[in-house]
């Protein structure tokens, strides 16, 4: 092996720019890069990292008469002993599972169906994306007042009655609250997921499907052996994002169930945080529950990331 020593001050690159000038240009570019980065760093620092650190600190404190004291694990003990604590986790887990069955599978299936259409794809994409453009609160009020009205005037109850099926109390029923929230949430949010899946599907080379067809694969086999393996990365990412997002269930109980719903049937962990912080004047307890949630989601994400790396 030979070693080549280069005198950098005299080196002239291929474009003819002297090295010193190029280094100055690079360093200027670097400065500019940092300057642009400051905005993002400041935004994250102010609106994500600082509140997070502040939340952790507040969870170990208590404020009385404007005086803040350190109280160790008191807030955590109190929160864990709240009769609604485990109900909230159970409800959140139930919502997450239901949302995975409905909210994760449906957009993928819809994307596969849309991908098969040769015409009107744009129209269908706009149609499915339309609910995403509605402000979430408006979409949920639509469900609350028109779809989930517990009387027979409600849209869903009218349909059930027309079909001679038993009607439901929807958000006032302890058993229907969660499925009803999942339906509304899926309708509201699936547009974005469908577009992402469609983009992933359109990147799959057509030759793979042709080869599978030549091998005699039907539609289900093509999905199983071509579509799913080819979109595995995006499916895996969306799975994690969906779980993290559904674990933060909040606006659905707040609007659809006016809070906790019947017998805590709509109480999610995020709503319990809100209830402690803003209705029960217990911001320290709310912070403690927020930290517990952060830890749970952090552990889940780390575990999931590790699992994904191993699989890859």
């Amino acid at each position: 092996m030979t070693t080549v020593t280069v005198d950098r001050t005299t080196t002239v690159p291929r474009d003819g720019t002297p090295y010193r000038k190029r280094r100055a240009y690079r360093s200027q570019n670097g400065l500019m890069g940092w300057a642009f980065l400051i905005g993002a760093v400041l935004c994250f620092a102010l609106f994500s990292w600082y509140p997070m650190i502040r939340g952790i600190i507040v969870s170990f404190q208590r404020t009385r008469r404007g005086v803040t004291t350190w109280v160790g694990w008191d807030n955590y003990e109190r929160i864990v002993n709240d009769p609604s604590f485990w109900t909230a986790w159970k409800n959140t887990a139930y919502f997450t599972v239901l949302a995975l069955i409905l909210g994760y599978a449906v957009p993928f299936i819809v994307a596969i169906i849309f991908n098969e259409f040769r015409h009107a794809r744009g129209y269908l994409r706009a149609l499915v994306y339309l609910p995403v453009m509605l402000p979430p609160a408006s979409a949920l009020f639509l469900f609350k007042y028109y779809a989930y009205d517990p009387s027979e005037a409600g849209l869903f109850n009218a349909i059930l009655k027309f079909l001679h099926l038993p009607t439901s109390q929807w958000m006032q029923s302890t058993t229907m609250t969660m499925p009803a929230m999942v339906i509304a949430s899926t309708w509201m949010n699936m547009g974005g997921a469908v577009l992402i899946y469609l983009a992933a599907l359109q990147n799959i080379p057509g030759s793979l499907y042709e080869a599978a067809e030549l091998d005699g694969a039907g539609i289900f086999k093509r999905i199983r052996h071509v579509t799913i393996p080819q979109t595995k990365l995006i499916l895996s990412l969306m799975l994690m994002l969906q779980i993290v997002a559904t674990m933060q269930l909040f606006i659905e109980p707040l609007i659809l169930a006016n809070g906790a719903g019947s017998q805590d049937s709509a109480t999610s962990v995020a709503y319990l945080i809100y209830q402690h912080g803003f209705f029960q004047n217990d911001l320290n307890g709310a912070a403690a529950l927020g930290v517990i949630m952060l830890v749970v989601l952090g552990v889940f994400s780390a575990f999931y990331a590790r699992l994904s790396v191993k699989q890859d």
Partner: protein
Amino acid sequence: MSVTQFRKVATLAFAAGLGLSLAACSTKDDSSDAAGDKVTITVDCQPVGAQKELLRDWNADVEAFQKLHPNITIKSVSVGAQCNNPPDFTARLAGGTQTDVFYAYMTDLQQVLDSGQAMEITQFVNKDTIPTWDSISAEAKAAFSEGGKVYGIPTKNYSMGLLYNKNLFQQAGLDAKNPPKTWPEVREAAKKIAALGNGIAGYSEYSAGNTGGWHFTAELFAQGGSPVSADGKKADFNNDLGKKVLQNLKDMRYADNSMGEKQLLQWPDLLTNAAAGKVGMFVGAPDATTAIVTNFQGKYQDWAMGPMPGQDGAAKGTLGGGEGYFFKKGLTDAEVKAGLMWLAYEKLTPGKGQFDYARAKPENQPVGLPQPQLFTPGSDAFKQENELKKANANINVDDFALFENNPVPIKFEPANAQTIYAILDGAMSAILTNPNASIDAELKKASDKVDQALAQANK
């Protein structure tokens, strides 16, 4: 412009913009003029744009007040039609973003003091700043004081009774001049009203947004109970009296089906239904009719009011509460005095502001309601206010005579009331939405939670 130049300019512009933005949201500007005379204060609870007449009146009052006191500038802030929506209020307190003079319920004293956001104003409160101060009822003042120190000024008070829709009473064949006096009578009347159909609830009740707990407390007072023990350290509703409150509601909801299908109601939900003529009766204060008219486009001619129903006879108590204003910590003496003078003008002077009945009369605002009754009976302010009210009454005062002439002992809301109400919402919503909900289990659960919350609050 080359790319490099463009980048330079963009970087500089971005950095300058960021710097300006950060500077803009740094601190409150100094409202006191260096000369020492000019004072600017911010005050919340300005009516919202949809409350056109109320907003016009408020702005006119601000203008008139500023003419009277040229050195004072009032900056009005609107915080919604419901000036104290508990979550918004808590967020403002936690963030320290409340106005200099800020609206609160009588139940908020503990929360406000705990937040460290209010200042003591004892030394400033006197006849010079509030000419009617000595006439204001002692109970109302007590709700904003602690340990002999004054922290806020009461501006409105109320007590609860039974509001009922006269039209629906007549349609149901009930005597609109003789409303139910006991809960069994309420139940019978509710059945008849609900039988009118068309989605009408004979009796309607809250169960969300802290209002369920608020009404549970009112109905518990009527039974002779109290939500907390005398020392304020333990829940005291998991007993026969608490069970009677929930049993009455459960019977009407499920045995009689007289409360309508829609439950989990919050303050605007019930009042919207009431304004639409879909509610026969509900427990409330006289000013609920004001909200029905000014916020929800109802007609006050439809409504009348009787005393709070008791279980077997007259109610043993009824809930009393109200509202007022606190002063943000750190105000200068001049700012506090300016705030007090504004409150005196707008809220506590017969013939001015909220008591300007001559102005309110043609404006579709109910005049002649028995409350607020802030002034001590017999005082000059009391006499003046009542004379003005009678002279300008635009409602049929007889509709509220039964409530006014049959006073029920008023019991004021307990300390940490909003915390207790939030928890009691759970018991109320369970009973009103699940026919199989156990009253015993729900009261036990709520009682445990309140014990825990009070232990925390009293630490």
